[in-house]
Structure formats: C-alpha cells, structure tokens
C-alpha cells in the first residue's frame, strides 16, 4: 500500500500537497503495521495486563469487597502471602488440585492416543461420524455434564453405586471420600476433554509420513509396536502441547467440584476433600469477601501454574535429549557394525 502511494506521488505530485508528504508520509510505512495490530494490544492491556497487575496490588492489602467503592483497603505488604503459607486449607486445596490433575491428565492422554490411532485406520467406515461424535462431550456445558455425573455418582440411587451393589461390592460415598471424589471429578474432566485431545492427535498423526509406518510394517512390527515406537514418539510435540493445556485447564478446575456436592460445594466438601485452588479463591472472594487474600491466592495460582507448565516442558525436553542421544548412539553402532562387516568382507 505504501508502495502504491509512493508511485502516485511520483506520477502526480499535484495531488499530494507538500504538507501531507511531511511527517506522516515519511513514517507511515513504519507506523501503520503497529496501528493495525494495536486493537488487540490495547484491549489486552486494559482487560489483561491491567487486571492482572491490579490483582497484584490488591493482594498487598487487607481489602474487603466493599472497600473497592471507597478507595481500597489497608496496605499490609506481604502479609496475605505469609498467611497463605500457614493456611492448611490452601495447601489441602493445592494437593487436591494436583491429585485431580494427575487422575485427569495421564489417563486422558493415553486414551486419546489410542482413540486417535483407531480413528486413523483407513479401513474405518464413516470416520466423520466418529470424529464429530468425539467433540460432542467437549461442546456440552460443564454445568450439564456435572449435573449428570453428580447423579451418576449419587450415594443412594446413583447408577454407579447401584451397579457396584449389583456386582456385590459395597456402595461408595463418592462425595465423602477424598480419593472417591477426586476420581469422580477427574472422570468428568476426562469425559469432556478426551475427544478434543483425540482430534488434535489425529490431525498430527495424519501428517506423519506413511512410509515410516509402512517400513516398520514390512520389517514385521505389529500394530501396537508401530503405535508405541513410531507414532507416539513422532507425536511428542503435540502431546507436550496438549499436556500443558490440560495442566493449565486443570488448575482452573472450578465448576465440577463446586457443583459436585450441593450445599457443601463452595468449600469443597465437609472436609475440603475436593476443594480446588480456584474454588478456594472463589470462596474467599465471594463468600468471605476477603478480596486481598483472594488476590494473593490468585497470584499463587499463577505461579504454581507457570512452574507446573515449566516442569512438563522440561520433562519432555529431557526425554527428547535422551532419545536423540540414544538415536545417535544407535546410528554410531550401526555405522560401526556395517564398517565391521565391510572389513570382514
């Protein structure tokens, strides 16, 4: 566009008076791109950066919800953070969050990888039906999912307990037990997100060169071996991406535990057995009205999430490096072996 204007200028100088060709014309080319992308950054600054920074500011105060209307709370420095470290309930919520995170992420990734492999089969009839079917849980409202699962996990008439009873096992009081409630909540998360991850993995699988898999097939590798030794390693960057997203998503777990047990939900059960960090934050801010402390929890959550994402990232990095070294090692051995053969011949 700038080029066109320069051309116009040279062809018909009369149309462009000297005044306009001054500052703006000289700088337009450099400034315009920034103006084009600025709407996002302006909005992001107002609704992203400002709110996050303001939360940090609030977290340094003893700030009751109604202090907001008249200028803010009392400055107390890092007291809220100090309180956080001694708050047994916060650490319980952190442990719960990690426990649910593990129960939700690991089986979900495995299941998604297996489903993606099955869906990638060229012999599969009507693949679109299956693929779109996988997305249905994902587009269902969290609240609807939770209500259905809450009734499945009901203590007296829940389908799962009725089934356990039929098989001769004891009924489980899902909401009362710590492991039981984590399992129930992780099940809801898995149900909603496995299909989504499957589709991501499926897309990545389709970009894997067929000759690699076929070569392995010719070499006599079975289907499971091909999947585990060729497909899964090649999907590693995608799995990393999905895992980080899942970790971040799980740290924001809120609706499922809140709605899981009516009445006691906002405190995560009678014994805080399924209190998540975000739920505790909500409870502090909107039940106890302690905005300052709730903001401190929010910042802690940001830190924990960042650290967890880094750990996942680093873990995969280590795995990659080890693999590369192993591959190099294998190549070297092969080379030595073939060299030896040549020598022998």
């Amino acid at each position: 566009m700038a080029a066109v204007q320069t051309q116009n200028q040279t062809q018909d100088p009369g149309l462009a008076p000297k005044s306009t060709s001054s500052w703006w014309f000289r700088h337009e080319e450099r400034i315009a791109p920034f103006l084009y992308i600025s709407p996002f950054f302006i909005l992001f600054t107002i609704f992203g950066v400002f709110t996050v920074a303001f939360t940090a500011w609030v977290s340094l105060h003893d700030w009751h919800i109604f202090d907001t209307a008249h200028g803010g709370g009392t400055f107390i420095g890092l007291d809220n953070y100090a309180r956080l470290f001694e708050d047994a309930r916060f650490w319980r919520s952190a442990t719960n969050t990690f426990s649910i995170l593990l129960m939700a992420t690991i089986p979900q990734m495995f299941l998604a990888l297996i489903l993606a492999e099955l869906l990638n089969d060229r012999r599969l009839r009507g693949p679109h039906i299956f693929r779109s079917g996988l997305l249905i849980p994902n587009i269902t409202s969290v609240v609807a999912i939770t209500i259905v699962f809450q009734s499945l996990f009901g203590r007296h008439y829940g389908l799962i307990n009725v089934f356990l009873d039929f098989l001769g096992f004891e009924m489980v009081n899902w909401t009362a037990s710590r492991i039981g409630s984590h399992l129930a909540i992780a099940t809801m998360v898995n149900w909603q997100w496995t299909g989504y991850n499957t589709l991501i993995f499926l897309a990545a699988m389709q970009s894997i060169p067929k000759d690699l898999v076929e070569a392995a097939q010719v070499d006599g590798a079975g289907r499971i071996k091909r999947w585990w030794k060729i497909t899964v390693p090649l999907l590693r960057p995608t799995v990393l991406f999905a895992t980080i997203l899942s970790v971040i998503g799980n740290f924001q777990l809120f609706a499922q535990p809140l709605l899981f047990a009516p009445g006691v939900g906002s405190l995560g059960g009678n014994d805080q057995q399924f209190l998540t960090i975000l739920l505790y934050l909500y409870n502090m801010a909107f039940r106890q009205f302690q905005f300052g402390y709730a903001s401190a929890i929010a910042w802690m959550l940001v830190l924990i999430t960042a650290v967890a994402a880094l750990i996942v990232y680093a873990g995969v990095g280590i795995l990659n490096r080890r693999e590369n070294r192993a591959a190099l090692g294998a190549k070297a051995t092969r080379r030595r072996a073939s060299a030896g053969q040549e020598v022998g011949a």
Partner: protein
Amino acid sequence: MRMRWLAAPLALALVLGACATDDDNGADPAPEDTTDAPDDADDADDEAAADPDADAEPVTLSMWTFTGMNLDDLVSQYEEANPHVTVQIQTTEHGDHHDALFTELAAGGGPDIAAIEVAFINEMAQQNQLWRNLYDYGAADIEGDFLDWKIEQAQNVDGDHLIGIPTDIGGMAMAYRWDLFEEAGLPTDRDEVSELWVDSWQDFIEVGAEYTEATGRGFVDNESNLWNAVVNQDPETFFDADGNPIFDQSDQVQYAWDVVVDAHEAGIIAEVPAWSAEWEAGMSDGSFAVIGAPAWMMGYIMDVAPDTEGNWDLAEVPEAGGNWGGSHLGVPSASDNPEEAYALIEWLLSPENQLYQFTEYGQFPSIPELFDTEEVQNFENAFFNNAPVGPIYADNAERVVAQNTGPNYNSIDDEFQNGLGRIIDGAESPEEAWESTINNVRGQLGL
C-alpha cells in the same frame, strides 16, 4: 439458616459464564433508561397525560430478587395503577443473586431495589453507606407495623439508618409424612404428633429411633436442616448482642451440635444432602419422613414432590420458636430514583400484599397484626392434609426471637454444618469435629 439455594446446581451456570453479561444486562439498562426518559419529551407528555399523578415523570425501576420471592404479580398490579412507573424485575437463584448484588455494590452500582436475605442482612446493615437510609423516605411511619426484630436486623448499630423493609419471615414447623408414620405404627394426627416431641429435641430423637427401628429408613432428612431448625431457636448463636463472636462458647451452638450428634448416633438421619437431587427425590420416595419446614418450605415441597399431595401434614417444632430465612427489600445508594423505589417497596410490603403473598405463595408475613386476622387464622393447605397452616405458623412467629447475625454469619454457619458433615461421613469423631470446626472458623475469620 439461609435458604441454601446457593449450591443448587443450575445456580452456577450464571456465575461461570453468563455472570458478566448478566450484570451488564441487568444493571446498565436501568440507569440509561432513567436518564434517557426525561429527554424523550413526547413520550413524557403522553405518559403524564394518562397518569392520574399528572406531574409524575416516567421512571424505570430496576429490581433484583431471588427465586421463590414471587413478587411479579404484585409488581404488575403496581405498574397498572401507576402508569408512569416501569419495573424491570430480574430474578436469579439465591446464591447468584447475592453474589451479583455484592459485586455490583462493591463497584459502586446497584439496582433501584434489591432483596437481601436474612443471612446477609446484618452484614449489609453494617455497610450502610451502600444503602439509602429508608428513614429519609418515610419508613419511620410504617416501621411500627413490622416485627421489631425484623426492623432491628436492618438497622445500623445506632439505629438511625434503616437499609430495608421486611418481607416474610421463616417461622418453623415440622412437616411430616403421615402415611409413613402410619406404616411405622406412630400416631398420624397432627396434635398427637406435636404432643410426641414438642417438649424437647430428645423426645424427637426417641420418636425417630422408634420410626427407624420399625421401617429401617431414616427419619429426618439430613444434618444440616436439623441443625438449622435447632440452632436458630435462640438469639445468641455465633455472636452476642454486641456483635462479639461467641461461636465457641455459646450454649445454643453447643446444644444444637449435641442434638445433631445424638440424632446421628441414634441412626435417624437419612444422610440425604440438602438441596441435592436425592433430597428432592426423597420427599416422594420416603427415604425420610420429617423435614424442618419454615413457611416458604411448603412451596418448595409442593413444587418438587407433587405426587405426595395430601400425604404431608404439619406439626409443631420441638421446643418452639426458630426462624429460617426471610428477607428485606432495600434501595442501594446508587439508585437514581430512591423516592419512587421506596414508594414501590412500601406498597409491595403493605399488610394487604403480605397477606396475598402468604395465601398465594406460603410466605409468612412479617406484620404481627396480620397474625390474628381471619384470613391467616382460617388458612389451610390441602397439600398438607388441610393443616391449619395459618395458626401453626402464627403461633410460632410470636415466639420467634431475632438472631444476632454478625458479619460472616454465613461462612461460620457453613463451617459448623461441614463439621457435622464430617461426623456423618465418618471422617472425624464428634470431639475431633468440634475442635476442627472451631479452629476452621477462627482460621477463616483470622482470629
């Protein structure tokens, strides 16, 4: 204590996603409309011509209520009688309503009229800068009509700033299934049933033990509703009259705790969590036979268990008294039309209209002179086997004493109910649960 709708599942649909948009839709249109209206000269003239109150300018009032208040018919009547007034009612679930209201107030906004439930009224009365002083608009002329304790709940400490006018009260009775009582060989007549337990909660537990032994089923629905029925029978629970926290030494708190623990040890608690789907199902399928029932609970039972019509009856509550629920209507400071808002509130909560709400929706009036009227005294409810609902609740209402609901009442109450829940779940012994509860409350209050 409060109506525990907060965790009713659908409630949170809003908090999660639609909350922000909901606030926008609910809060913004009203101020805009009211500022626009005077500019719209033609419209204003038309309205004024039709209006008997000729110089009244058209106003739009925004009004926030929570589910179950059912003020819509009365509001339409008011709009018909006062054509210059348009009311936009926004009704959400109990928990969402208060969340949205407090967030809006915290941001310096608010509707023209807002409902405040009893669990929050004291906290709001202490934050009285957020609310218009209704004494400035004529509340002093009508405050004498209402129960003293309901007025006191909505006053600041000095008693010169009134933030709300009382709607209904939650006087207590016990709703029981006479058909299940018959099955268990217990008396079914409401007077005989009252006689069985009216003297003490211990008698109530004994009746329950007899019932559970005969039927093998739970007697009372759950620990939290039993707790609500007992603890609210005395004004000194978590706070004394001066607002000092006494939750760890209050006799009433200890007493209510012991009643629930005894009931649990007698095995009469059905362990069906309040407000859960199983609880609602339990009202029909008989997994429990008794519910502590404030007047508004009648409407709830009729709603969720329509097939049990005629199988319920009402008896007196053991040891008499107690209040669970009930609300106020107030005018947030941000309202641009406090006079009009107050006029609507005063009309809505007049004796005739409170009587209408009672006969129509089972909300028991907060105006004592109504208690002895024929309409209340002769009111029966067919769903409850033609129980004389009016006299039962009226009788109890006269014995109700106001609780001192200090700040954080709601969260303290939650901690106690959670503590009892831990005993029921078998996670802790009663002694351990008491200790952890007291520690939790202290921790949450930063004491």
